[in-house]
C-alpha cells in the first residue's frame, strides 16, 4: 500500500506550489512575441512598404539569390535618406545618421529567428512564387512574415513551427519542370493521408492570403490529386520515408 510520509508530504506541497511558477518561467522563456523587443530605433515598415510601396527585395536583397534575406547595411538607408531633407531632422533619422557618422552597423534584433537546426531557403520560395508563378512580392513574403506593410515595427505573426511549415508543404500543388512533384510534396504526402482538414487554423491569418492559397485545400482533395499520379509514383508515396534532411541541418 502506498502512503506518504510526513517528509514526502512536504516535498509534495513544494512541488505543487512550484509547478505553476515553473510553468510561468517556461512560458516566459519560450515567449515568441518580440513586438516589444528593444530595437535600437523604430523602423516603420508601414511607411516604406505600405505608403511608398518599396519592394521588399529592394532592402532585403538577399531573398531572391541566397538562403537568407538579409538586413540592409546602413549605407542602403543613407543612399535614399541623404536625398530626403524633408525628414532629415526627425529623431529616428537623426539616430540613423549618428550610426552612419560613427561608421557602426545598427544592432537590429532578429525578429524571425529560426532555430539553428532548421534550413530555410529564401531563394527557393522567392524564385518559385514571385518569379515563376508571378505572385506579388508582398503577398509572397506575407505568407510567412504577415502583412508587414501595416506594421509600424516588424513582429512575428506566424508561428514558424514545423507543423506550420508542413501545413503548406503537405498540400502543395506545384509540379516541377520535369513533371515530378516537388521534393517537398514527394516526401511529405503520406502524413496527409487523413480525411481531416489539415490546417486547423488557430493562428490568425492576415488578409494577404488569397482564397486560392494552398492552405485552404483539404486532405480529401489531396487524395483525389494523388490518385491521378502514375502508379509507380503512387506506390512510392505509400512507403516513402520523409526526408528530414530537406529542412533539418
Amino acid at each position, binding site marked *: 500500500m502506498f502512503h506518504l510520509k510526513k517528509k514526502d508530504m512536504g516535498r509534495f506541497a513544494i512541488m505543487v506550489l512550484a509547478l505553476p511558477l515553473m510553468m510561468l518561467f517556461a512560458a516566459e522563456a519560450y515567449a515568441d512575441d518580440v513586438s516589444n523587443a528593444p530595437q535600437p530605433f523604430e523602423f516603420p515598415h508601414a511607411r516604406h512598404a505600405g505608403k511608398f510601396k518599396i519592394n521588399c527585395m529592394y532592402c532585403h536583397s538577399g531573398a531572391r539569390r541566397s538562403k537568407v534575406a538579409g538586413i540592409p547595411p546602413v549605407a542602403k538607408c543613407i543612399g535614399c535618406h541623404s536625398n530626403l531633407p524633408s525628414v532629415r531632422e526627425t529623431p529616428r533619422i537623426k539616430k540613423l545618421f549618428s550610426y552612419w557618422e560613427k561608421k557602426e552597423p545598427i544592432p537590429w534584433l532578429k525578429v524571425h529567428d529560426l532555430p539553428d*537546426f532548421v534550413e530555410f531557403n529564401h531563394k527557393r520560395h522567392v*524564385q518559385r512564387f514571385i518569379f515563376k508563378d508571378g505572385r506579388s512580392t508582398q503577398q509572397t513574403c506575407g505568407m510567412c512574415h504577415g502583412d508587414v506593410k501595416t506594421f509600424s515595427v516588424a513582429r512575428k505573426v506566424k508561428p514558424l513551427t514545423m507543423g506550420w511549415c508542413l501545413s503548406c508543404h503537405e498540400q502543395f500543388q506545384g509540379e516541377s*519542370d520535369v513533371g515530378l512533384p516537388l521534393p517537398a510534396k514527394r516526401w511529405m504526402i503520406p502524413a496527409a493521408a487523413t480525411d481531416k482538414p489539415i490546417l486547423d487554423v488557430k493562428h490568425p491569418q492576415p488578409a494577404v492570403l488569397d482564397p486560392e492559397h494552398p492552405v485552404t485545400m483539404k486532405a480529401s482533395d489531396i487524395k483525389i490529386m494523388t490518385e491521378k499520379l502514375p502508379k509507380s509514383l503512387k506506390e512510392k508515396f505509400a512507403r516513402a520515408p520523409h526526408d528530414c534532411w530537406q529542412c533539418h541541418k
Partner: protein
Amino acid sequence: MSLSRMLENWSRLNQKDYYKDEPIMWGMSIDLNKCTGCASCVTACNAENNIPAVGKEKCGSGHTMSWMRIERYWDSPEGEPDLAVEESEYPERGAHFAPMMCQQCNHAPCEPVCPVAATYHNPDGLNAQVYNRCIGSRYCGTNCPFKVRYFNFFDYQEDIPHPMEMLLNPDLTVRSKGVMEKCTFCVQRLRNAKGDQADKGIRGHVEDGAVQTACQQSCPTDAIVFGNLKDGESKVSHAWESHGVELNRHEQFNAEGERGYRVFEELNVEPSVMYLDRVRDTNA
C-alpha cells in the same frame, strides 16, 4: 522497436532495389595508394562541420570528436615499423593509412536501433542524422561496426572565446551536449548543389564535379573521389566499375589489376565508400 517495425526493416533489407528509381546515390572512392596520411582531410572536415577540438585529455578519456580519422596500420605484426630496409633513399617502412569516416551504409546497422528515428536513410542514399530529434541513447554508436559516430559529452562550443564563434559554419547546426553526430558527406554542400541545379530547372541530377566534400577538396593527392553512383558518367562510378566493386554483394571478386573493396562487406552493411587497396613495391 515493435515486431512489425522489425519485419518492415527486414523486408526493406531484402528489397535490394529499394532506391532504384531515385536519381541520386552519393558514393565515394578512396585510393589508399594515393593517401599519404597527411590528415588534411581531418582538418578540413573539422573546419567545415563545426567539429570541436576536444584536446588530448578528453581524447584520452574516450571523448574524441572527429568525423574523419586517419587509421594507421603497420605491416609487421608486432606493431612496430620494420626499420630493417634502409638501402633506398625513401625506404618502405610498411605504414598503411586508411581515412575512416561514416560509410553511409545502405543497410545501416545504426538506423533500425534508434528509438526515436533520429537516424534514417534518405532518398539520396545517405545515412541521415537529425540532431534535434536525437535523445542521446548512443545505441547507434554501439551498433556501428566502423565506430564512426561521435557523441557530444560536453557543450564544447561554449568554450569558444568571443570573436572566434564567427568561424562556425552557419549552414550546419552547432551541436550541443547529448547529441550523436557523424559524417554527413557534407550534406549542406549537396543541398546547395541540388538547389543550384533546381535554379536551372534541373531536378534529380547534379553535374559531376559540381559538388565536392570538404575532405575531397583538401586532399593534396586527390585520393578521394566523390559523386553520384547512379550517374554512369561520373568519376566515382567509373572508379567503382573499373575496380570491380558492385553494390549488393557480400564480397568483391577482383579481377587482375582490380583492387577495390569495401570495409566489413561480409557484414552485409552495404557501404557507399569504396577503398582501393594499397600496392607495395616489395622489390625496392
